[in-house]
């Protein structure tokens, strides 16, 4: 009797000890991540101190670091964000709804599902090459001296679409859309799957068609999850540099797309809005990368200021995602 008691108590000590070791390892991993992040943030803030001011936000790039600003990059990223959202949301949500609610459970559907998940893991530069061939050069179908274009007439202005698209914002946005589409589709599908089947059954039992059920109940119920997925994907897309390098976004740019330089002009200049998507551009990550590669030491500070700005943006987008999610969850639960 005594022997088993003693054995049992030593095992207990060992088990507790193993538990404590494991807990310490996990704790150390967490803190390592946090510490590294904090160190990086502090280093960046230190470098950017004094360099991030209103002048920085309202000036273009310059050969003199003191005068260099991020205006071109800011507007480029802005238009990219809007256009990418415009392309991704209908296609991504539509595909997710179809795959989840309407597609028959066949081999073809399963094949498509597996491949979408795989596409999420493709390196972004591959999408850059794809975008270059397909969107920028359009397989070199439109050759010749004269650039053709399609003109669409709207109320206040007309939209001129160049063919091939060339190194425009539209081409960049399309490429980025391809990049984040798999992630959006998977996230949206997960949100749709989470809608309780009792809701669907109740709606169908009342004589609603499948589409009516999806439109009135399933999509609204899945909206918070879908929205979160979209916002997080867009914030990832804004940080991507490799695909934009591939499609040839410019690096020394002293103009804003469509010549829209301030938020006021968004309202006062409809021609600019029509022109902007088809303008050449640069983006914030590209501009930062370019500054870092320049020999002058001062450009490191300029780059750091850009990094801080980008971080602020990403934080704001993630905060919006969390807020919207919380807001919709409350709305649906009561």
């Amino acid at each position: 009797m005594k022997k088993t008691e003693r054995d049992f108590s030593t095992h207990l000590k060992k088990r507790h000890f193993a538990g404590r070791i494991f807990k310490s390892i996990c704790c150390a991993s967490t803190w390592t991540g946090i510490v590294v992040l904090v160190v990086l943030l502090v280093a960046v803030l230190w470098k950017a101190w004094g360099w991030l001011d209103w002048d920085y936000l309202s000036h273009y790039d310059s050969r003199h670091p003191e005068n260099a600003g991020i205006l071109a990059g800011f507007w480029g990223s802005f238009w990219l964000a809007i256009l990418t959202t415009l392309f991704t949301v209908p296609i991504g949500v539509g595909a997710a709804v179809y795959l989840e609610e309407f597609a028959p459970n066949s081999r073809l559907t399963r094949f498509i599902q597996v491949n979408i998940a795989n596409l999420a893991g493709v390196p972004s530069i591959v999408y850059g090459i794809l975008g270059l061939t397909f969107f920028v050069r359009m397989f070199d179908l439109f050759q010749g001296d004269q650039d053709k274009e399609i003109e669409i007439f709207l109320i206040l202005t007309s939209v001129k679409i160049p063919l091939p698209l060339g190194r425009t914002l539209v081409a960049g946005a399309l490429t980025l859309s391809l990049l984040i589409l798999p992630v959006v589709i998977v996230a949206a599908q997960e949100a749709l799957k989470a809608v309780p089947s009792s809701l669907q059954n109740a709606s169908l039992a009342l004589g609603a068609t499948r589409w009516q059920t999806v439109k009135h109940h399933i999509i609204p119920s899945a909206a918070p999850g879908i929205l979160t997925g979209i916002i997080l994907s867009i914030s990832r897309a804004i940080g991507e540099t490799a695909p934009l390098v591939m499609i040839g976004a410019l690096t020394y740019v002293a103009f804003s797309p469509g010549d829209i330089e301030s938020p006021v002009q968004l309202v006062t200049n409809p021609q600019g809005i029509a022109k902007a998507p088809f303008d050449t551009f640069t983006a914030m990550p590209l501009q930062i990368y370019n500054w870092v590669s320049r020999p002058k030491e001062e450009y490191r500070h300029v780059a750091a200021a850009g990094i801080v700005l980008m971080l602020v943006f990403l934080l704001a987008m993630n905060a919006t995602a969390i807020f919207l999610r919380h807001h919709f969850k409350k709305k649906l639960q009561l």
Partner: protein
Amino acid sequence: MMTLKSFDNFVESDKTSTSEVSQTDVGTRTKFETRNLCFYYSSTKALHDVSIQIPKKKVTALIGPSGCGKSTFLRTLNRMNELIEGTRQTGEVLLDGVDVYQSRIDVVLLRKRIGMVFQKSTPFPKSVFDNVAYGPRVAGERSKSHLKEIVEESLKKAALWEEVKDRLKDSAMALSGGQQQRLCIARAIANSPDVLLMDEPASALDPASTARIEDLIFQLKKNYTIVIVTHNMQQAARVSNLTAFFFEGELIEFGKTKEIFTNPDKKQTEDYITGRFG
């Protein structure tokens, strides 16, 4: 176990019904008829050759132990089983003499004619008004005044109008459990169905709410054919005109409630009713 005396009291009031309903009654008094209905979940056979005739404007109760197939049977009546993967059925299900599984039948219209109330109340996360108006709206009703009429009428029929008439725009999720279930009944009624299928509608409710639902069923049977699945034999005895006893996917016995509960033909029925199993 209920006493025979209390049972008789309840059934006496039903003597005003004029038609004698028997197993072989066919034609105009039958709402639903199934012939040799077999149902399969993938490879498992859940219903074996069920043939039954459910009469119009009466309450038919389906009783039996857990897993005996009564909910499955209920769902075959409005083709809700089709929503589950890998199910199939053989045999016929006739509504007013027409096979509902024919390909030319529009299942959406079928489900409008047949209202269903589930065990757990599932109000939509919308206002009370929008919940009740949902059925008519998806069917194409646009007139606001007409919808208001329909909503008021359905809520009155479901004995909920007095409690919610000032709160029509409030969220349905704020109602109590019993109110939510009555809302689901109002929702089903708003479609003006011929039939109401109820899958254990009161099993998640307290005795007071249960009593109200039972009163409601009693009122509703004047205008609707009602088929109710219940675990609670006292409830079956209280509200139904006819009772069908299911066991392991087979219909063991079907007849007038009074006879089933006082003088069942089959021993299995008697064993279940007296509580020897299930």
